[in-house]
């Protein structure tokens, strides 16, 4: 079976839906498909809490936002992309407002903004502390208005189809029936989100397994800057559930086992008293960027000033001084989550937290239009790397990125779709038959072996945590490269207990594991080759930033053996590399 559309979105999260609506609005005659392995409103955008950045208030300026973003990214951002992003952000956020997003408001009815880490002024729009949830549902519900959007809910894409030198769609499994079909499109946009599940301890949901990155990688498209992985400094131990940065934006403080605000020891400025009207000071202390805060945790741990818990060491995030009323109004979800999953009420007790894998700065290499090196293939959202996040994303830039580049990529893909001929039906069907055979051969043949998905996944998680954590070293990265090779070899012997078609979640877990191994490989090799420290990539054996050799994007290409790592210049327009300063400005 083959179904034809003009544009196919793989992913129904924030990026995919924004792209779909952008196309539907610009050209109601185009047929749009949104393919998603879960119902769109289950996409992990739903979990984002803190907010989305865009300049809207008079005391702020675009220039400020640009500078914060570039410095936050340790000068690894492409500056043309950042400039476009910051300029377009307010429009996109207002568009969300017009679609009904329940932004929190000031008494006069204008949207409210809050401070966020690494930003020099409050510019983060929020809907209490369920911003991603409200944005995703607003987008999803708005998409229902357009009847030229066809949804493929619970369809799992497995492969990008390339024919005649261009991407012509994907093969996908309809989960309920188990059948494999072609969803053909003149243009295809990957919006499959991040890959946090490669790591054992992450804020990411079960679906964030890097599928789109791996599919593009296999289709010959490079993955860019994969070594940059963001640890969020405040996750709940055990579950990895995120306690949003907004908790610190509202004035929460970080304490070590002695109740000391240890961040002052790490070049992040001097603490102000919590009663001081100027607390919290932007871009200082608790409002420093995430990479620096997570690194500070590791240092505290080494000094044995952290607090042991049943899930490793923690520090305390204290928001008690905000008082019950403010917590309930601005951070109700933080309270709900702490009560349910940590068994403490943050109104009365500090919250135990530790750094947790949160976000992939890298992803499918695209230009400023979201186009990849493969004609007809586009990417947007967390799976893509345009790159505005550089070596360290600033909190609350990502949700805005979904909108800005979701829309732009959607429009670019639509233009492309209007120019190319229809898909090559026959060869796509042949390719699908091959994919069908591959899956049957790899997973359904009897007596393949004895490897279990679970144990391979666990070993992958462990090796990634040891080598690609907050601090890395050449030695451990090399071991991990070998380990991943080994796991890939062993993957061939994986044996599924479930040989059936309908909703075979064991099969999808296996396919996801296969995707993750590819992405993990790209991460480990890119990290190994980058012999400098920058942003979230900290090499204990190369502690300095090295602009001369590494002010460049890493580009990982898949080959038959190990990945090939190449480099591409960072686009610098007006903001030459400088020192990242926190806690000292002004």
């Amino acid at each position, binding site marked *: 079976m083959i179904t034809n559309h003009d544009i196919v979105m793989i992913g129904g999260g924030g990026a995919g839906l924004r792209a779909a609506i952008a196309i539907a609005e610009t050209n109601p005659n185009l047929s749009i498909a949104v393919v998603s392995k879960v119902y769109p409103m289950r996409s992990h955008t739903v979990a984002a809490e803190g907010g989305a950045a865009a300049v809207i208030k008079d005391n702020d300026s675009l220039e400020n936002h640009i500078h914060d973003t570039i410095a936050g990214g340790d000068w690894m951002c492409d500056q043309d992309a950042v400039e476009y992003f910051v300029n377009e952000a307010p429009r996109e956020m207002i568009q969300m407002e017009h679609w009904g997003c329940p932004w929190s408001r000031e008494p006069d009815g204008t949207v409210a903004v809050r401070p966020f880490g690494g930003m020099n002024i409050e510019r983060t729009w929020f809907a209490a502390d369920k911003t991603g949830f409200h944005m995703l549902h607003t987008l999803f519900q708005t998409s229902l208005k357009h009847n030229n959007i066809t*949804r*493929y809910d619970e369809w799992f894409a497995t492969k990008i189809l390339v024919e005649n030198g261009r991407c012509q769609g994907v093969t996908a499994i309809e989960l*309920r029936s188990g059948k494999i079909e072609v969803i053909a499109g003149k243009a295809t946009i990957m919006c499959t989100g991040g890959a946090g599940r490669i790591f054992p301890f992450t804020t990411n949901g079960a679906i964030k397994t890097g599928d789109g990155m791996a599919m593009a990688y296999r289709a010959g498209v490079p993955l860019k800057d994969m070594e940059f992985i963001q640890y969020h400094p405040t996750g709940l131990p055990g579950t990895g559930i995120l306690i949003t940065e907004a908790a610190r934006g509202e004035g929460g403080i970080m304490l070590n086992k002695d109740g000391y605000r240890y961040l002052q020891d790490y070049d992040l400025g001097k603490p102000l008293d919590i009663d001081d009207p100027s607390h919290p000071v932007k871009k200082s202390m608790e409002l420093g960027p995430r990479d620096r805060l997570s690194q500070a945790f590791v240092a505290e741990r080494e000094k044995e000033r952290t607090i042991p818990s049943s899930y490793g060491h923690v520090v305390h995030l204290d928001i008690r001084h905000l008082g019950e009323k403010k917590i309930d109004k601005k951070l109700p979800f933080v309270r709900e989550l702490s009560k349910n999953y940590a068994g403490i009420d943050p109104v009365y007790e500090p919250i135990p937290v530790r750094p947790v894998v949160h976000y992939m700065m890298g992803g499918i290499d695209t230009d400023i239009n979201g186009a990849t090196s493969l004609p007809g293939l586009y990417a947007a959202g967390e799976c893509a790397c345009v790159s505005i996040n550089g070596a360290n994303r600033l909190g609350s830039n990502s949700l805005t990125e979904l909108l800005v580049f979701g829309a732009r990529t959607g429009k670019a893909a639509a233009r492309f779709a209007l120019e190319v001929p229809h898909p090559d039906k026959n060869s796509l069907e042949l390719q699908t038959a091959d994919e069908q055979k591959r899956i049957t051969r790899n997973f359904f043949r009897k007596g393949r072996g004895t490897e279990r998905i679970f144990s391979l996944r666990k070993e992958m998680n462990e090796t990634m945590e040891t080598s690609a954590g907050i601090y890395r070293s050449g030695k451990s990265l090399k071991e991990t490269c070998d380990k991943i090779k080994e796991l890939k070899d062993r993957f061939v012997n994986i044996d599924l207990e479930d040989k059936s078609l309908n909703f075979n979640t064991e099969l999808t877990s296996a396919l996801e594991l296969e995707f993750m191994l590819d992405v993990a490989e790209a991460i480990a090799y890119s990290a190994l080759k980058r012999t400098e420290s920058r942003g979230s990539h900290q090499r204990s054996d190369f502690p300095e930033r090295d602009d001369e050799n590494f002010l460049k994007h890493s580009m990982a290409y898949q080959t038959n053996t190990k990945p090939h790592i190449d480099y591409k210049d960072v686009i610098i327009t007006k903001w030459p590399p400088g020192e990242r300063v926190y806690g000292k400005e002004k």
Partner: protein
Amino acid sequence: MGKKEMSTYHRPFPNTWWLKRKPYVLFMIRELTSVFVAGYCIFLLVFVYKLTQGADVYGNFIDALKSPSSVALHFIALAFVLYHTITWFNLTPKILVLYKGEERIPQGLVAGMFYAGWVVVSVIVALFVLGM
């Protein structure tokens, strides 16, 4: 959307569903209070009818109120009607969702208003029927 109908399993939903969980049982009791409400209204109607039949007939009727069966029926009816009253007032805040600025007026307060009104009305009715 190309979604083929496939064999799904439809679980039976027995007509005795309301016995399966306590909230459902309570719901059913709440619904059945209406029978006692109507029953008592018919009693009132008979009461008025007897009034139109003259003092003797009416007098016999009032005497019959003292019979144990009448008293027993009244007690049962009272239990159900009180259950009706309580559940009814407790649900009022779901219908009357009131705000003061940003804050929702607490549900207990809304229900409380009805309870207070109930007391007042009851006293007035009692005074009116019994006294004056």
